[in-house]
């Protein structure tokens, strides 16, 4: 792999991250927002996996695998909370949740 190839990976990660950010800040539905977060996290995974090429002990790839698992945990927690919210309020839209704050 040569020098200019490696920048592609970085661009990919940046693209993933920024599209994740875009989704997170534009979408109103909580599921979409979660997907956006996933994209952002995966940008990190791409980085890790890519950088571990320069590491003989492949720490980066191990890290990436762990991170994927953690992401799954996170999403499951998020979905559980979402379910709770939906059960109680019939709402899956972030904009409609505006109760916490100083009166």
């Amino acid at each position, binding site marked *: 792999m040569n020098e200019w190839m490696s920048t592609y990976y970085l661009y990919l990660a940046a693209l993933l991250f920024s599209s994740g950010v875009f989704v997170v*800040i534009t979408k109103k539905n909580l599921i979409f*927002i979660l997907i956006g977060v996933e994209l952002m996290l995966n940008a990190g995974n791409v980085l890790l996996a890519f950088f571990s090429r320069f590491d003989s002990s492949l720490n980066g790839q191990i890290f990436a695998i762990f991170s994927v698992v953690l992401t799954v945990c996170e999403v499951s927690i998020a979905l559980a909370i979402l379910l709770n919210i939906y059960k109680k309020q019939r709402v899956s839209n972030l904009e409609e949740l505006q109760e*916490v*704050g100083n009166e």
Partner: protein
Amino acid sequence: MSELILILIILFLPLLSGLVGFISKYSSIISIVGVSFSFLFSLVLAFDRKVIRFEWLWVEGVVFSIHIDRISSVLIVLVNLISLLVLIYSSRYMEEDNGDKRYFAFLGFFIFSMLGLLMTNHLLLLFVFWELVGLASYLLIGFWYQKESVPASARTSFMINRIADTSLLAGIILLFRDGFDLTIGSEPILWTILPSILIAVGAFGKSAQLPFSGWLLKAMAGPTPVSALIHAATMVAAGVYLLVRVSPFLPQEVLNFIAIIGCLTSCYAAICAIVRHDIKKVLAFSTISQLGYMVLGIGVGAADASLFHLITHAFFKAGLFLGAASVINFMCNAHKNDSRDMRYMGGLTSKLPWTCRSFILCSLALAGLPLFSGFLSKDSILLGAWLFATKTGSWAYIISDLAIFTTLLTAFYVARMVLLVFFGTPRTNLTNYKYRESKRLYFPLVILGVFSLFIFFNLNPLGHSSYLIEYMGFPIQHLEGSIIPFLSILMVISGFVLAFSWFKPGAKYTTTYLKNSQPKSGLGIFALEGFQLGELYRRVGIAIYKLSLAAAYLDRQVIDPMLHFVSIGSVVGSKVLALIERFMVNGPVNLSASILAFLGKRFAGLSARDGQTQIIWLLVMVILILGWFIFF
């Protein structure tokens, strides 16, 4: 040691008797007894002819000393004597007043302070008693504090005194700063100009010289015997006494200044006395005028003459005031209306025979007729002024001439006063009030009247000095063949003649007097108002009060909120001005809290409701920080 005890007895006996009188039933008797003992002891002191000196470390660097020489001892006798007479008079005069206990306590306090003032030669200790005398004066002026305008008069007179006193204090401290000994020692070292002037101004305040003279008129709100003692005989003379004491230390420029002020004061006060109707005010102006003479005497270098005039003046002016007190007391009961206005009086000779006799005696002394004490002392001042003029030349002649001319004015208003009060027929309907001149009332009057004769001071009726002055250690001046005595006699006589032609009983002026009471001419009005000095004081007072209101406004509206503003001002942006406008009314804490809250909301608001805004906010921050790093 025994001398110390003697001095302490003389000093504290009046105070103690006043205090004891305050808590016992017989306040007047106790006071009289106390002061008479004090008087007797002071006679002992005076005949002892010794210089007595005690020292006492007050604070580090300030050694107070009590120093009694012949001048002091004579004056102590004088003060005690007049106090005694006034006390005797007051014991009858104040009998009906229910505050008499307080009265005698105050008087005792006054006598104590006055004696203390005479006993010290340390300027600071003198200042202490100086102020105490002022306090006594304040208390006694405000004695009838329930009456209309009396409290204000008391306050004004104290305040004017206070201003002059502050000048005196500043002068004393400046002397201290310049390394002079604050004890008035026997070896004269000339003082520097500024402290000398300040001290002179301080003396002017107490002696009612221009521009402080107005307070003495305000002081007339007090009981008349008090005026006799404090505002005629003793306290007002304290300034003269101080000047006499310090005159060897004063530079010539300051002495000239003193002479000019004295001369102007005497002339101005005499003019004012001519037009006033209120008998006490006339007497007050006459006192100012005579004090002006004394001050003039000091300025021209005739301190001995001033001291002499101080003594003689003390007797006859006290007599005049006590006489006026009787008159007022009588009028008060017989007329009810305005008891002090000479326009309502007239023909009181038959009603108040003893008063009239002694009053006339004292008046003649005041006018400076030969054979009376006033002539002796006044003449020596005039002589001093004349000598001064011949020595200095040019402008000094004006002073001397003005002083001689004032003699004419003096004679004029004295004659006017006597004619209006005692001669002719009563100008208003008097009730059939039978006034009984009790012994306690006329005894002091007679004594004072008798002391107005020349004989007690000098056997030569045309002399210029007195054995008293000699006793005090001043050299006797022999100035034979001067024309000054004749000139002054001429002035007095012409003054009498003028006054008689104007105010003789049954003259046109006296009959229409009540109608044309207001002087028409500008000078007349000016003089009636005491050269607008009262107005001046009022204006100054109002100006200071307005200044204080401004300060309070500043405090409330600017300083108070500003600190809150400053404490947070570093973070407050452009909104502050609008906020101040809005929250000024609610008080400063609200203001600052509101500003803080405003900022707080901006920070807290981000954490409020919208989750996505929060994330945007977060990312923007991250980008900002990164951008800052990348681009700078």
